[in-house]
């Protein structure tokens, strides 16, 4: 790697940026993974309410897709700067399957629009909308599995000799199933809270109050159930991790402490969600739950990083990678980021104050 230009900033700076954008990516990505699935289930339960819930859920999917991709791109950028050897090698070993993500993503995204149209059209049989939901779900879960495989191959250099001719062996990895479940159930928990905020937003905009309250309740129930289940799966996942991973996760380094804090917040989140369920009219509990959810996610992102650095090995120390700081380009970026975020806030305020839409 010494042939390439040095990393243009302290590696830890880039690593923290990576954590930040990845966190936001996860928040949107989880919605994309679970919302079409939940919509599909609501459509099963027939009835007008089910259709309405499905409509509300799918309405936000394209926007969530867009920001999943946008923040995913940023995450990949920083990963490539820090771990090019690992990352591209994993891409190449996955080969056509890795490139296949592009096609899968495009089909899934267009189906999100199609599903919206189909649900909104009362003439069209519900079966079609459910089919669209199924297609999206299969594709996005497939993409999640490929992303996970890429992460796994990138970290497990010792497995490269086997993986090079049989890349599907990653599936046989003992942590594959719990990992995937961890992502899926986590997505349900996050989407449950998204539902809570979507319902408030629609209520503010003059949506039907009774239905929106029911929707919010559903969201809380889903979040609670998924969080409870997640704790079980999380323990299972943890038990499958090799003892070295345990040592790293409990090593007391800063990222490992963040992870432990995240786990604690995850446990507390369950309690907060139960309180929110018991007092559905008190928005404060929903706010606290969202706060704890973010704290949990931060912990999980940190834990992922701990495992990655552990797997990459003792000979690799992020902080000691050679770098040469490109000060001016970085400052330009920082400045434009601030300007961009302020513009974004102004734009969001515009929508927030928008008059009601006549339906």
């Amino acid at each position, binding site marked *: 790697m010494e042939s*390439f230009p040095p990393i243009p900033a302290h590696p830890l700076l880039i690593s923290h940026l990576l954590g930040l954008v990845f966190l936001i990516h996860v928040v949107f990505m989880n919605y994309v993974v679970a919302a079409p699935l939940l919509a599909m289930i609501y459509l099963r339960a027939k009835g007008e309410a089910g259709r309405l819930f499905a409509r509300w859920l799918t309405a936000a999917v394209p926007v969530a897709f867009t920001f999943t991709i946008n923040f995913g791109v940023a995450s990949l950028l920083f990963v490539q700067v820090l771990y090019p050897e690992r990352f591209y090698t994993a891409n190449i070993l996955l080969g056509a399957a890795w490139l296949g993500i592009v096609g899968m993503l495009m089909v899934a995204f267009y189906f999100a629009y199609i599903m919206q149209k189909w649900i909104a059209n009362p003439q069209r049989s519900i079966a079609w909308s459910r089919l669209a939901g199924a297609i999206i779900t299969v594709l996005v879960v497939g993409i999640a599995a490929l992303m996970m495989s890429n992460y796994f191959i990138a970290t497990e250099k010792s497995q*490269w000799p086997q993986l090079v001719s049989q890349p599907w062996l990653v599936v046989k990895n003992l942590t594959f199933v719990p990992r995937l479940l961890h992502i899926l159930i986590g997505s349900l928990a996050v989407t449950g809270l998204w539902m809570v905020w979507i319902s408030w937003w629609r209520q503010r905009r003059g949506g039907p109050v009774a239905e929106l309250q029911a929707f919010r309740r559903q969201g809380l129930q889903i979040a609670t159930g998924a969080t409870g289940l997640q704790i079980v799966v999380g323990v299972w996942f943890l038990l499958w991790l090799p003892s070295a991973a345990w040592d790293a996760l409990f090593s007391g380094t800063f990222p490992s402490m963040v992870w432990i804090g995240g786990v604690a917040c995850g446990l507390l989140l369950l309690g907060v969600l139960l309180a929110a369920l018991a007092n559905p009219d008190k928005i404060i509990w929903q706010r606290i739950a969202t706060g704890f959810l973010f704290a949990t996610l931060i912990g999980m992102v940190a834990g992922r990083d701990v495992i990655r650095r552990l797997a990459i090995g003792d000979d690799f120390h992020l902080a000691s990678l050679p770098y040469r700081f490109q000060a001016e380009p970085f400052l330009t970026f920082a400045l434009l980021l601030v300007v961009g975020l302020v513009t974004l806030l102004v734009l969001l305020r515009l929508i927030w104050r928008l008059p009601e839409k006549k339906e």
Partner: protein
Amino acid sequence: MLPYPQWNMPLAGGAMVIAAISIFHVVIAHFAVGAGLFNVLSEHRARRLGDAQLLRFIRDNSIFLIYLSFVAGAISGVGIWFSIGVVAPEATTFVIRLFVWFWAIEWVFFLLELASGYIYYFTWDRLSPRAHLAVGWVYAVSAFMSLVIINGILSFMLTPGLWPTTLNVWQAWLNPSFWPSLFMRTVSCLALAGIFTAIIATARRKVYDATARASIVSWGGRFLLPLALMPLLAVWYFRVIPVASRSLALGGAIAMTMFFLFGVILSFLVSVYAYFGMFRRSTAREINLETALLIAAIAFLATASMEFVREGIRKPYVIMNTMYSHGILVKDAEKLNREGVLAHAPWIVPDTVHYAGPVAIGEAVYRTQCLRCHEIEGYNAMVPLIREWNMPLIESALNDLHLLKAFMPPFIGTPEEKNALAIYLWTLTAEGQAWPEGPPVFDRDSTSTADSTAAAALTGGTE
């Protein structure tokens, strides 16, 4: 210094995978940039003139933009990135590392572009005209800025300018071909936006009557007129690019010259059509969907040709004078000539299952330096190029590969490796195939054994 394994698309070649995705992306992305400017300028005009039809049209255009550019455009952009990472990981590592902060800036504009694009559409008729126009400007500026950023990185690869000596990344970005290529791209963005107005207006005949269509298409036609500058911009561009690249495009390689002329002439013709067919209201009224699509197809071909030339004339480099197309850095060549290219390509090991002795080594050397540009059969295939060759011809070709065709890097590696490659190439010729002992076993589909031995060697070995 080839630190990565290889991925190859059999027959088509990896480069074609990149090219296919890129062309698709470039056209959509250029449209997205042009449409941003088109929408906001048109909205100013429509509000000034009180033109309800035009307003309605911009609204149609802005949802079309979301469907096309936020999905197919954004994802194919990711697709380019995925494919270059897999096919040309060395060059990708290089430009990512060098330009991280520029990519990050690009991302900020991308984020703004997406947010403002959605809001622009969702707030139609619900914001004050002033506020709505402001949102439109945020979109137009951020989309355009994302073009500006990426343009600097792409043009760097052809004209690194002062960067190799100063290592100043600003000079790398604001390089000699930055401005002409930015102008060329901007002109083509505006043109694509103009062409799409004709498509959308004629595709929705039920909504826009003949008068409305005439006025919309005629307004859209103005955005094509700058295309007439394309020949001049091309001259400017060719003044700043390296002599070797210029000569490739201007006759040195006839395919390049043809594509280049196609690109320039097609662009010019489209602008002529825009003037006579779209700009003038009497004819704008007559334009139909079929014609509009035909013009779009021509513009697509023009864009594709120009991109093809831009990529082509950089050969034998992927980054001019710095990295060869196969991923070896120019400064490493001498070392590799001494120590051997295979010694520094841990993933590329001789396939001793299908080949024996020097043929196995030669085949591995082939994968290090030739496979990126020559499939055995298929894309720029090796077999037809050398079928009738004999050993002396092959040897002298390898001695002066870079003189034989300006597209090719010189051979890199030890004399033994060169020799082995010559023997391997010879087994592909008619003479080699007819050799009494029979042609060596040849089965391209199973290189996996070789790769896994490579990986074993690389990681300390489990076999």
